């Protein structure tokens, strides 16, 4: 009996030693040499694995950045929108490079077809999926460009940054948004856009993507852009483009002067996080055409540092 036990133990030990030696040589032969910088870069990344950078995960992004740094000696367009400038600076310092500061972006919902503005004419009782409803019909309010309100964007967000507002039926983006772009892809109508966060979180944008002519657009939604181009005429910075009966504000050129907001007849242009306006009468009396009039206005009125969601 003892002999069998001894024999078994010895065989197993011998086998273990032999295999260990084999494994050692195999490991040497097939060793994967990885740049240690990849691990360092990965450590500073947010590890959300959201795909906002365009790569499948943070590890892959780290590999790509290190590769780019080694080959081109620059990071090019590589950017982690979630980490923002801070993380990209750290990444660059690990790789011994410099990065250009990028404007932080935020998701903006360009539809104002709330229950009040675009009352439901029919009721949809199919599965709660925008993608499905989109292939079926124009929408409860009748606008074929507008928000379907079934929350595909909410389901796609892993940062809890977008919610449906029960009173308006439209999605609302909050400060947690990292501009990863998941909701932009999830929206079958392409309503959500990544726009510059703007100075002091202030933004101006056309909250409508209806490409129809004024009449049909207005018929379905009170707050639709009717393509009247008043905003384009009043814009001193040439930031507004008119195409397909629709105004679009270029956020790179826009200086946040708010002139377009005032002239829009359907209130389709939205301003966010601006201090309340002075009464209009006083405003026109004191400065008819002041250069950079709104800077002055801000100085007079202390900025209220509050975050307001999309109105």
């Amino acid at each position, binding site marked *: 009996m003892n002999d069998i036990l001894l024999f078994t133990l010895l065989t197993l030990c011998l086998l273990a030693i032999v295999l260990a030696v084999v494994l050692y040589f195999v490991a040497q032969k097939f060793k994967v040499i990885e740049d240690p910088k990849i691990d360092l870069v990965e450590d500073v990344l947010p590890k959300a694995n959201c795909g906002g950078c365009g790569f499948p995960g943070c590890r892959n992004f780290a590999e790509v950045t290190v590769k780019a740094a080694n080959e081109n000696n620059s990071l090019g367009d590589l950017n982690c929108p979630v980490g923002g400038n801070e993380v990209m600076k750290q990444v660059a310092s690990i790789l011994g490079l410099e990065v250009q500061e990028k404007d932080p972006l935020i998701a903006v919902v360009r539809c104002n077809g709330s229950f009040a503005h675009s009352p439901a004419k029919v009721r949809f009782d199919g*599965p709660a999926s925008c993608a499905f409803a989109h292939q079926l*019909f124009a929408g409860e309010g009748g606008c074929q460009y507008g928000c379907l309100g079934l929350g595909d964007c909410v389901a796609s967000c892993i940062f809890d940054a977008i919610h449906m507002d029960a009173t308006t039926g439209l999605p609302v983006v909050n400060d947690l948004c990292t501009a990863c772009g998941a909701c932009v892809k999830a929206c079958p109508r392409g309503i959500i856009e990544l726009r510059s966060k703007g100075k002091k979180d202030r933004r101006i944008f056309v909250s409508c993507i209806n490409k129809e002519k004024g009449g049909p657009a207005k018929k379905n939604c009170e707050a639709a852009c009717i393509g009247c181009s008043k905003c384009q005429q009043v814009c001193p910075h040439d930031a507004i483009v008119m195409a397909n009966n629709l105004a679009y504000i270029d956020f790179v050129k826009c200086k946040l002067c708010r002139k377009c907001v005032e002239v829009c007849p359907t209130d389709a242009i939205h301003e966010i996080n601006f201090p309340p306006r002075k009464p209009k009468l006083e405003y026109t009396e004191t400065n008819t055409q002041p250069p950079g009039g709104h800077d002055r206005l801000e100085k007079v009125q202390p900025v209220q540092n509050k975050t307001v969601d999309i109105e």
Partner: protein
Amino acid sequence: MMKLATFRIGGVHPPENKLSANEPIIRLPLPKQLVIPLSQNLGAAPKPVVKKGDEVKKGQLIARGEAFISANLHAPASGKIAKIDDAVDSSGYRRMAIFLDVTDDEWMEGIDSTDELIHQNLPSSEVIRERIKEAGIVGMGGAAFPTHVKMMIPEEKKAEVLLINGVECEPYLTSDHRLMLEKTQEIILGIRILMKAIDVKRALIGVENNKPDAINRLQQFCNADNGIEVHALKVKYPQGGEKQLIKALLGREVPSGKLPIEVGCVVSNVGTAFAVYEAVQKNRPLIERVVTVTGKKLTKPSNFLVRIGTPMSALIEAAGGMPVDTGKIVNGGPMMGKALPTTDIPITKGSSGVLLVDQSESRRSTPNTCIRCARCVTVCPMGLEPYLLARISKLSLVERAEKERIMDCIECGSCQYTCPSALPLLDYIRLGKQRTASYLRNRK
């Protein structure tokens, strides 16, 4: 009694509710304005050849199908083109349409306006195909696939038999049934024309056994001379599906992803056969069709012969007006039809019925979780696994969906009809099909 033929796997038997089966076809008066959507056929939309302000005669070409899969459009009445603009059509979206202000109902010259039956002088198959193409005929069963494309048989293939679909398995709808009763001889002639066009000696008409009058009537005109046979089929949905009909009538199975010509068949609807007769023998383009207007609460469920472009509201008005508690207006039958957002939507070549469902029946039940009872698998006539396809589609796993043969789904809705948990199976499968189709297109 001999056991009736049917297809092998799956199928359901929803309540038939053929309320308008005994109502003769009535010609509806012309409305003041017709709205003719450009995209009425499967494939590319035809291009308009008229412009605003043009005077057109009934039967005149107003849009030409230039692409390979496309169909011509003709003026359904004489009048003036008011505008070419967007209008909401049965897709639920605003799309290009021709607005025609109707002045009178005079046919264009060169069109036989009599009701006289023309038996003689069937033209050659090339001429038949050309006339079918010119007349803009599409499959009248619902899918609206251009008929002239179907008639073009690839050189290496050979059609052996023509199958005529008189099944009308959708509950409520009776337009094909009435057409078979009232236009029997025209349909038989249309079938003979189609047989000549594809050069076959045999044609089988499949009719479900719930229409014995139609079967008897058709039988009177079928004999060994013309090679047309009528077959009574067991009542089972979706027997009107192309592949199901082939299985029921011939026992042949169309391979996955292939067309009926693979097993030597060409399938056409009775409505199409009638339209073909009109086009070839009378030179009349396809400008009108029979539409069933039905619903349990409707005072007068009827079958109307209407011009393409007539708004559905006119049909509902003629059938006794919209009942107060209407919950849904469905374009087509209850199984495959689509709920519409408004009644201003025009009738197109593919609309076979307008169904008004009352509120109590129209609401969907709240979906529960899948209990894995596999009833959907049992009833799927294509042998698919709907619960799995729905789940895959929800997660957008297109490659997996392709492996699970999602593209074979005929969207009959049997799975959703039978699901005890009221899951929106077909809704998700449709979405998945669309995504898979675009994935397959991009891969090419």
